[in-house]
């Protein structure tokens, strides 16, 4: 596990991966365990129908708000907020540790005295971040499959994979922004703060944008919008939205390499 920067970074993440996995499993289990009660209570949908539109906009995931169908329930309870939140927090943490963490700890001087270029450092750290997110997404997907099977929800394996993959891509794009902010500033606080602010803004703009016409343009720029837009739990993925999220990640990493290669490193 100490073969290269990638392996060493993953090794440093191993505890974090275990804890996040346990959290995701517990959350999924809890939400799915409650589902039969909700399904057998049709009054709930009537109650929800009377919610103000603004609230509905925040609760719905992609398509119509519908608590009693499997896809509608998982969308509202897990994928609209909690799943992207947890994955994004994990990804941003890993992105902030990538270079800013080593720079603040002062270990980067020794590390870069080895035959490791700055570009390779960013690329391998980013690969480790992507691996962490992918592993967490895999754990989430398997938990969902097991849960859906036990409770008997009408969501396809493929659509669960699509929604989980979209959430992982969204988290990766925020993680990549964390790598970028860290490679420019050299400070972990900035590397956490910037993508966190972007994530909150993306969520608000996307959710409110469906109600406010003047936000329509901004909405198209929100990573969160591209995460929900194809309604992945019901209709799977759409290449345009996947491409947008992936593009943000790739551009952020490319900029991070450019910025990091030009900078003086902090002592």
């Amino acid at each position, binding site marked *: 596990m*100490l*073969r*290269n*920067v990638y392996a*060493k970074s993953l090794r*440093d993440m191993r505890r974090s991966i275990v804890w996040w996995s346990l959290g995701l499993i517990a959350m999924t289990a809890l939400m799915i365990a409650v589902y039969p009660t909700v399904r057998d209570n049709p009054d709930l949908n009537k109650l929800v129908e009377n919610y103000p539109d603004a609230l509905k906009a925040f609760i719905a995931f992609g398509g119509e708000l519908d608590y009693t169908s499997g896809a509608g329930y998982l969308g509202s309870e897990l994928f609209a907020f909690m799943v992207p939140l947890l994955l994004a927090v994990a990804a941003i943490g890993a992105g902030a540790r990538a270079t800013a963490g080593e720079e603040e*700890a*002062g*270990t*980067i*001087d*020794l590390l*870069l*005295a*080895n*035959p*490791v*270029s700055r570009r390779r450092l960013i690329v391998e750290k980013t690969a480790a971040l992507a691996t962490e997110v992918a592993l967490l997404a895999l754990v989430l997907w398997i938990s969902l499959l097991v849960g859906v099977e036990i409770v008997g929800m009408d969501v396809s394996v493929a659509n669960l994979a699509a929604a989980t993959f979209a959430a992982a891509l969204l988290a990766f794009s925020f993680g990549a922004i964390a790598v970028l902010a860290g490679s420019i500033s050299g400070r972990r606080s900035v590397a956490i703060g910037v993508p966190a602010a972007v994530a909150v803004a993306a969520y608000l703009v996307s959710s409110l944008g469906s109600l406010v016409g003047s936000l329509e343009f901004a909405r198209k720029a929100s990573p969160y919008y591209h995460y929900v837009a194809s309604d992945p739990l019901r209709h799977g993925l759409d290449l345009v939205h996947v491409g947008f999220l992936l593009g943000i990640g790739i551009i952020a990493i490319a900029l991070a390499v450019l910025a990091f290669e*030009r900078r*003086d*490193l902090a*002592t």
Partner: protein
Amino acid sequence: MGVSELDFEVHQAEVFGFLGPNGAGKTTTIRLILDLIRPTGGMIELFGLEPRKSVHNRRRIGYLPGDLRLYERLTARELLKYFAHLRGLRDLGMSPALADRLGLELDRPIRALSKGNRQKVGLVQAFMHGPDLLVLDEPTSGLDPLIQQTFYELVTEAKAGGATIFLSSHVLPEVQHIADRVGLIREGALVLVATVDELRAHAVTRVEVTFAEPPSAEAFAEIAGVREVERQGRRVRFSFRGDADPLVKALARHHVLAIDSHEADLEDIFLALYRGTEDVDAS
């Protein structure tokens, strides 16, 4: 600390001592050499390449930072294994032998190590791959005298093997021991580059003479090589350089009770230079 006016070369199989007080720009210079920071002007070459273009050459470099920060959660062995992989070594290289000589336990977590032991980890990782160039920033800080001796041996052996050693220090005697040439840096500028022998040739001797009776005020004014005369009753202190004959002849005219003298080390030359006095010609 910014640096400017640095112009020097370090040759193969040479130990170059880079001396200056804290804050003079030693670490800045070293971080420029390692490409951790970039020069706004001027040029550096390592093995004929700019540091920025010599990522592959870093395999040939051993670096010990002045402010050594290690991976706290790894053991020394794990850290060495990591760096060995990054440098393309199959095993731990010379690490086990080095650790043995320095008295370093490899299997304790780094966070549990004392400052001296951390410094040993830093030294082992710098020497482990038998580098052609060693860049050592304040290498002996935190080491006890016995281990310092081992460090001098390591440097001497590396030099014998053809390695170039660039080491910084603000402690002069250690450099005097092992360096072939010395560069003095002050406020970001290189004040002087000289061999240790050349510096010694400039070395002044501090002399204290006790007379039976206080000598007259002019008695020491005109003797060649005598400077900085201080009188305290029957005792006279001065610094001296060059041919001793005129001094001995002059002293012979008086009743001398005691002579105490010691050869100045680099410290004195250094201080003299820093004060900007004319005791040493900056050449």
